[in-house]
């Protein structure tokens, strides 16, 4: 049945369903138990499933991921929470060196069904290390799958699929959209986890985004429509793998592409998309693929983040530049 709920609540409901469906699913992280997580994403889960299934961990990210790997080797399906994007790096070694490579190292004889949840991105006026978008740092690593939902329904279903995945999934949650409400049909049949979706059809230019930037791109498309421009908005949903077929199909129609993400442009996912689409759509493109994202600078203090993050005008500016070719 369909119900309107906030994105954070959708993840909560999805985790509840996963815990209910499979006794091997465990949720672990800092403050995920009694507190329900600093964003309340795991609210009430420990009360209902107990301390053995919803585990408050010591404050040590490498330890959280490292023990999750051990639990996975024992047959568990851990869903771990990294409290904030900027806190993931103590666990980076375990994720990159162990979690990502274990299946290949074992020649396929062990599986690593571990979900690493990371609230990410800026726009909430936070202190340092609480607003970063490190997805490209993980996308470069073979063995990991990386997804980021943009709305409540995707958050619910993509989490279901991530928990069921036998591969490690880094689940980037757009924290500034946690409180955005949307319809969630808990009896729907979800599409594949790593397929993009056209959220708005258009003819003049494609905006490709994921996570928190999808909503922005829809607003950009609205604004552009007022100026008589028809923009297509593509929600990529997955950063590894990236659904290049969907991007290609869209670009073959619109002939122009702007990729938008909060992460720094330099070596970002937009760079990979630009390179691949240039190869695939060279004769279709009317303009070079443009990117809008963060700068090659540390994430700025909160009072400066509006100037750092892509916003309506910056994306529109890129749209104008593309259409000017």
């Amino acid at each position: 049945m369909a119900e309107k709920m906030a994105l954070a609540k959708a993840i909560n409901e999805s985790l509840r369903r996963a815990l209910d469906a499979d006794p091997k699913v465990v949720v672990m992280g800092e403050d995920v138990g009694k507190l329900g997580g600093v964003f309340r994403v795991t609210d009430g889960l420990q009360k209902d499933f107990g301390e053995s299934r919803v585990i408050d961990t010591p404050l040590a990210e490498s330890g959280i991921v490292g023990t999750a790997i051990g639990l996975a080797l024992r047959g568990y399906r851990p869903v771990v929470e990294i409290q904030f994007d900027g806190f993931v790096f103590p666990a980076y070694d375990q994720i990159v060196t162990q979690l990502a490579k274990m299946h290949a190292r074992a020649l396929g004889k062990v599986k690593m069904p571990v979900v690493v949840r990371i609230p990410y991105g800026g726009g909430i006026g936070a202190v340092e290390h609480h607003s970063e978008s490190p997805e490209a740092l993980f996308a470069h690593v073979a063995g990991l799958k990386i997804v980021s939902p943009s709305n409540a329904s995707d958050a619910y279903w993509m989490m279901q699929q991530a928990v069921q995945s036998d591969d490690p999934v880094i689940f980037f949650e757009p924290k500034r959209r946690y409180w955005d409400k949307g319809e969630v049909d808990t009896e729907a049949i979800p599409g594949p986890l790593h397929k993009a979706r056209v959220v708005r059809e258009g003819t003049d230019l494609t905006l490709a985004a994921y996570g928190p930037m999808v909503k922005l791109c829809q607003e950009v498309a609205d604004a552009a429509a007022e100026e008589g421009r028809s923009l297509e908005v593509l929600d990529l949903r997955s950063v590894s793998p990236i659904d290049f077929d969907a991007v290609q199909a869209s670009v073959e129609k619109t002939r122009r592409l702007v990729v938008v993400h909060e992460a720094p442009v330099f070596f970002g996912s937009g760079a990979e998309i630009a390179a691949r689409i240039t190869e695939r759509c060279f004769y279709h493109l009317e303009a070079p693929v443009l990117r809008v994202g963060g700068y090659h600078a540390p994430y700025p203090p909160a009072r400066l983040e509006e100037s750092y993050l892509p916003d309506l005008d910056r994306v529109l500016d890129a749209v104008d530049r593309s259409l000017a070719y």
Partner: protein
Amino acid sequence: MTVESTAARTPRRSAGNKAGTTGTKRTTSTTKKAAGADKSAEPALVQLLTPEGKRVKNAEFDTYVADITAEDLRGLYRDMVLTRRFDAEATALQRQGELGLWASLLGQEAAQIGSGRALRDDDYVFPTYREHGVAWCRGVDPTNLLGMFRGVNNGGWDPNGNNFHLYTIVIGSQTLHATGYAMGITKDGADSAVIAYFGDGASSQGDVAEAFTFSAVYNAPVVFFCQNNQWAISEPTEKQSRVPLYQRAQGFGFPGVRVDGNDVLANLAVTKWALERARAGEGPTLVEAFTYRMGAHTTSDDPTRYRGDEERLAWEAKDPILRLRRYLEAANHADEGFFAELETESEALGKRVREAVRAMPDPDHFAIFENVYADGHALVDEERAQFAAYQDSFADEDGGK
């Protein structure tokens, strides 16, 4: 560096105290032995067999080897001899160009066989990359260990086949995996245990400290077995710690014990004790096996640049195999026939390993793309296809040969 001798020392004993233990332990009436607490004194260690092959009594640990038979003792001896023979063969194979690298366990046979033989089949082992003796105890075919050193895979055995996880090269990481696995055992309500191997160098890693924390907090059934072989490549243990390593456990709230790493009986007894604690729900234990890396760190290392011969000679006198042989002979537990037969078996093992390695084929090129993911990945599929097309382009040039 000053190497602490294991030879001249006998375990210090006082009523109710375990030599060389610190921390909490429910089964003893007092826990304050604090070996090493007196900075001027050398820490005590648990020893049941002197370098001269004399059995010494130990009130605390004798009970763990009380039922050991002559056949068991010959078995331990055989394990150590065959492991050393395998190790020597692997070193030779590296010199002959058949292996790219080898990490020798020479000198650490007692620590590995003693602890390895303390395990039950349903226990789980998380090794570093030097645990060839433990692998032997687990029944992993030694030739399977060589694939990664030859460069045909990154770990060629099924970890669940023998409850022996893959070798972990980034030191210390596996202590967390061991802890997580042990947490799973608790959740399952099983009474098996986990043992995590690591070295004096890895003891400095943050992951090891985090593993100590997690295992203590969750009271996980895990034994941390640190083989202090005195050298982390070129760095002596003083570069890792200002306190004897086993004392680290105290701060985390569980017992630590130092054992003579070259005494197979002591390693067997202490590991059994630690495993029993784990099974009884008493949580983690740190065992520091005080031993010596007789060879180089790996075949790429040159120890003459950082340590002298006299140190090695001192440790040779404490050789783990020699001391058990002395004991077996003195106690009439083994005759010449046994040793001769073992020599033959040993040579046969060397030959088998040699032949298996030489026959080990290079993997198919497409193995690059295998097992990257369990459920597949579009990019891997695309790149595999590109690679296949590229390979096929050469076939075309051959004119369809």
